[in-house]
């Protein structure tokens, strides 16, 4: 038994996992770590496939915006100035460069702040940051507060349900097995205090 386990462990170390076919990972550098919604943002790409068109995407937890398309030069680089949609909600986002087949080739994190009143650009991000909290409060005040819950689509999916039922069944069977073993011992549980 112990030998079999050792053999299996050794085999696991020796056998190389199958190589997945993935795109080469490039690099995206942003002109600013924070940008106000509606402002421009400089995006630089490097180490990407040469002469290839990429779609730039701004992806947040709740919403995704397309920023535009760029094409890399013969060195696999690009420079672009994109406009962050004014409708983008403040929060943490990722700028992604998507290859023609939709796979992500590079990404960089950015924080979108509340839209500035007039013509802000990435260069104004310091001011935007300084006023971020105040702007957030202002933005919040402009939205009507409600006690109503969000109508969120909660779907566990087939795999999710399988995990939930497996954990539930495992707990139930283990619990019953423990109680069955305990039944013969004195002081069987009752609700009598």
């Amino acid at each position, binding site marked *: 038994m112990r030998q079999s386990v050792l053999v299996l462990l050794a085999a696991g170390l020796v056998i190389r996992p199958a190589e997945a076919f993935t795109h080469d990972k490039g690099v995206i550098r942003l002109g600013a770590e924070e940008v106000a919604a509606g402002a421009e943002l400089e995006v630089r790409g490097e180490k990407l496939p040469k002469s290839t068109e990429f779609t730039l995407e701004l992806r947040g937890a*709740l919403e995704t915006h397309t920023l535009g398309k760029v094409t890399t030069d013969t060195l696999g680089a690009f420079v672009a100035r994109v406009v962050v949609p004014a409708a983008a909600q403040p929060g943490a986002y990722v700028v992604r460069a998507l290859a023609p087949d939709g796979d992500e080739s590079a990404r960089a994190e950015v924080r979108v702040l509340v839209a500035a009143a007039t013509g802000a650009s990435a260069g104004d991000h310091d001011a935007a940051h300084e006023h971020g909290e105040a702007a957030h409060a202002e933005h919040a005040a402009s939205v009507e507060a409600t006690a109503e*819950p969000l109508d969120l*689509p*909660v779907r*566990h999916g087939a795999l999710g349900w399988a995990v*939930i039922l497996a954990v539930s*069944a495992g707990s139930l069977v283990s*619990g019953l097995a423990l109680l069955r073993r*305990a039944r013969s011992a004195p002081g069987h549980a009752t609700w009598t*205090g």
Partner: protein
Amino acid sequence: MDRTEVVEPGKAGTGSAGGERALEHAGWAATRFALGGLRYRIPAAANRLPYMLGGFTFLGLVVLALTGVWLDQLYNPDPLAAHASVVYTVTRAPLGAWVRALHYWAACVVLVSVALHLIHVFRRRSYVAPREVTWWSGVLLLVLVGALAFTGTVLRADQEGGEALAHAVAAAELLGPVGAPLSPDFAPGTSLLARIHNAHVSLLPLLLAGTIALHFWLIRHLGINAPASAPASFAEHLRRLLGYGLIGIAALCLVAALLPPALGHRAVDGVEVTKPFWPFLWIYALENTIGLWGMIVGPAVILGFLVAVPLLDRRAARPAWLVALAAALLVALLGALAYGFVAPQMQHIGM
């Protein structure tokens, strides 16, 4: 009952034959983890379910810790991103909605079981000498569990969470220097939400773990205060506790899958349109009645009474007035809780 030996709480012994046999068969792990140490004797009466309420609470806390670790991988304590990260957890993260629901329902179970445990321990008079510190550590655990429930509510960053945070800040202002850590100016370099998050995932759990360790140590060495009865092994008690606990966890898993807790819209500052998490509704009712001081006076009265109990009951028989006072406080608390459910929504801060 065919066994005539009577066991006094806390006395060590060999325990039941069934429990010993099972442990012997456990073999390798039993030896390496010194599981034999669990074979100390307890009164068989302690195998009744009311004596397992503390254990059920602990199992609930284990579920909370495990689900909490998962949820924290997805949570962003940045005030601008917190709510979106919770929505992401619910709508997109693998099993996120279920794990969050499990966390919520486990918290509800823990709050109920810890309250029932406290009532049972009071009824059994398990706070009299030499168990005063066991009782006080239990009161501290109640406070910590309450603080964890409160901070957990705030982390949602929805309207209810935002209002809870505003109440915490208002309470801190009322308390003056004592409430300074909850003031936004206490650490201007970081947001209050980030510090609340820090408290929820590190400070409070560390304090909780240390207090639980003390509580268990005292129970182990001072014994379970059950009626003198035939001997049983603690290992057997543990087996029953785990058995019922795992069945409860199975039920909890299904409840979490079928009844996901609500999440409100992103918080709007400066207004109050929600009521708090239901275990705090009795405090909300007090705020409706006597204003913001209600959220300080109410918990202070309850905690003051709980801390004083071992000092007020030091004679052979429990004074009747103490039981009457405890009953009055319990009825008042339950009444305020019920009123909190039906009370009209009110603005408390700035009134």
